[in-house]
């Protein structure tokens, strides 16, 4: 199944239609993956990897994010049989991602600040790191939502659908988080 097909199916099974349809595409994929279908787990990975990446990026240094994402899906694969609500696999993956990020710091990973000459204003990544650091300093609900929106490029509906949050909550978190980010970076963002 291609990414476009996955995305199309995701929109077909939005929050409103999820109550009408007894089996969502996520639940169908979970059933197939439990039955040993490799492609089904690959589809789950492609569908939720950007969301998991955003959740981890909101907590873990950039160089280690991909490793933690892999560990999240490895843990998910090993615990797939313990998932009770198949339609809520997105929220389940969010919890695993948060736990894996916490585990990352429990394993005594140390980070060192880069020298000033490397983090100069002329470095195009320096501004991005500064903005990301500002987002990471926010409360959890805001930083996750902002990373998913600004970094991963997901819309509010997609964030709500894949994380299992209510759309109203996502809307509020986006609005308040964006206001807080503007205050942190200065009105209108960095000039």
């Amino acid at each position, binding site marked *: 199944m291609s990414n476009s097909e996955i995305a199309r199916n995701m929109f077909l099974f939005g929050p409103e239609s999820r109550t009408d349809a007894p089996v969502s595409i996520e639940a169908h994929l979970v059933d197939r993956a439990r039955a040993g279908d490799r492609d089904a787990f690959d589809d789950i990975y492609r569908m939720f*990897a950007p969301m998991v990446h955003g959740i981890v990026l909101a907590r873990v240094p950039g160089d280690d994010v991909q490793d933690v994402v892999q560990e999240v899906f490895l843990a998910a694969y090993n615990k797939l049989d313990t998932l009770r609500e198949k339609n809520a696999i997105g929220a389940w993956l969010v919890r695993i991602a948060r736990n894996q990020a916490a585990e990352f710091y429990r394993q005594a990973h140390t980070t060192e600040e880069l020298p000033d000459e490397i983090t100069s204003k002329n470095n195009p990544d320096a501004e991005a790191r500064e903005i990301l650091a500002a987002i990471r300093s926010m409360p959890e609900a805001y930083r996750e939502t902002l990373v998913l929106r600004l970094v991963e490029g997901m819309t509010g509906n997609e964030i709500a659908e894949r994380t299992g949050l209510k759309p109203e909550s996502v809307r509020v978190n986006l609005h308040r988080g964006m206001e807080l980010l503007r205050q942190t970076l200065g009105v209108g963002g960095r000039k």
Partner: protein
Amino acid sequence: MNNEYLWNKTGSDQEIERLEKTLAAFRYCETVPPVSPIGDKAPVIAAGDPHARFAWRGFAFAASVAVVSIASVAWLPSTAENKEFTNARDVVFVSGPESPLADVSIEPASQDIQISEPPARRSRNGHGKINSTTASAIRGPRTKDAAPKDSVAALSDEERYAYRQLMLALSITGSKLKIVQNTIDGTQDIDDDSSKNQR
């Protein structure tokens, strides 16, 4: 700030667009799924079991030996047009397996031969010796060892060369098969050496 753009990317907001563009460096890049999933569990062979890993080579050797043997059986009669050769081969099969008196030491027909049987059996029969004609009548003519030589001698030069090559190939294959079997069983040639020494 355009809330509609923040929510579903409709409309335009330069500030948010600039943030998106700047933070795009951290965006997820598609990678291969981390697990090798569920369907790949069966064909795994334990890495620490070299016997199981190389067992197919033993089967390959055995299969090749079987093919060579079948080919030789099918090929030899068709190439041996000489009638003496076929008669000699018949003699080999007529003589059959070794009789119970195989350990009788054969001597010239005019002499008596000694039977290497347990003493109890000899005393029961009441005869310590038997006539060589009786032994030869039981055993039949001793033509088994001579038959292959005669059959080979009856072949043409080309057939004799092919026969020797075939025997050599079978010998080499058999020895290699034995090495493979010893490797699989974990035994060494030391066993053979020790048994030779015992003899």
